[in-house]
C-alpha cells in the first residue's frame, strides 16, 4: 500500500499547481521575510525599474526583461528564436501568473538569462506587483 501512495504522490506532484497572483504574492512575501528581516513590502515602482533595467551580460550583450517581453508588458514580445510571447500584463492576458510551477520555472530561466543569478523573493514580488498594477 505504501508504494501505491508513493505513486499517487508522484502523479500528483507532476501536475501543474494552479495559483492566483495574490496567492503567489503571499508566498513570495513569506520568503522575502526570511531572506530579509527588514522586509518592507513589495513595490510596483521598483518592479517596473527592475523590468527595464539593462545589464551587460558576460557574453557582451545588453539584456533586460524587456529584451524579450518588450518595453510595454501589455504588448506581445518575441523570443530569440522569433516566437511571439503573449503579453505579460495580467489585465491583458489573464492566463499569466495562474500556474505556480510555470511562474517559478520561467523566473528560474529568465533571471539566470538576464542577471546570471537567481532572483530574490523581493524582486519576484516587486515584478508581480508591477504586472498587476498595469491597467
Amino acid at each position, binding site marked *: 500500500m505504501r508504494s501505491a501512495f508513493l505513486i499517487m504522490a508522484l502523479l500528483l506532484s507532476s501536475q501543474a499547481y494552479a495559483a492566483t497572483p495574490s496567492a503567489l504574492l503571499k508566498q513570495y512575501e513569506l520568503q522575502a521575510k526570511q531572506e530579509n528581516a527588514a522586509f518592507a513590502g513589495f513595490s510596483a515602482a521598483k518592479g517596473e525599474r527592475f523590468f527595464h533595467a539593462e545589464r551587460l551580460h558576460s557574453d557582451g550583450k545588453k539584456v533586460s526583461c524587456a529584451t524579450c517581453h518588450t518595453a510595454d508588458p501589455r504588448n506581445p514580445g518575441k523570443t530569440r528564436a522569433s516566437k511571439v510571447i503573449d503579453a505579460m500584463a495580467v489585465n491583458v492576458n489573464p492566463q499569466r501568473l495562474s500556474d505556480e510551477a510555470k511562474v517559478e520555472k520561467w523566473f528560474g530561466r529568465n533571471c539566470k*538569462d538576464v542577471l546570471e543569478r537567481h532572483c530574490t523573493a523581493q524582486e519576484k514580488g516587486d515584478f508581480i506587483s508591477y504586472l498587476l498594477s498595469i491597467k
Partner: protein
Amino acid sequence: MKKWLQFLVVMTSITATSALLASGGFSDNGARQMPAVANAKWKAECSGCHMLYHPGLLPERSWHKMMAGLDKHFGENASLDQATRDEIAKFLALNSADKQDNRRSNRINQSIPAATTPLRISETRYFTSKHDEIAASTFKRKSIGSAANCAACHQAAEKGDFSESQIKIPR
C-alpha cells in the same frame, strides 16, 4: 495491493497503446508526411521559445543528446524537472526519425552520417539540400529570424507537414 497493481498494468498498457497509435503504428508505411504525434508535456515545454519541432525530424541519438543538455540549449537554459525531462525524452525517442516509417524522416535520417549527432535539423544535409536556393539574407528577415524558424515559411510545420502547397515565404 493487487488492485493497485491491476490499475498500474491497465494504465501502462493504455499509455503504451496510445503512444503506438500516436506514432502512426505500423500503418504509415512510406507516407509522404510525418504522422500526427501528441504528448502534452512535450507540447507545453518545447514550444515556449520556438515552434514545436516534430520528433520525426531528428534521429533518436540527437534527441537523446539534446535532452541530456537542456541547461545549455543553444545558449539558453531550457532545463526541466527530472520526471518531465524523462517523459519528453522517451516520447521523442519513440517517434524519432529512425523509428518512423515515412519518407521524409527516412531521408533526413539517411542524410546524417552515422558517426555524427546533429542537434539542429537546419544543419542536416537533407535540410541544406532542400533549401540551397534560399539566400542567407532571406532567413535573416525580421519576419523569419533564422533557418530554425520552419513555421515562418511552412504553414503546417508543427504538424510535420512540409509539403510544397503549405509553403509561403514572408516578406
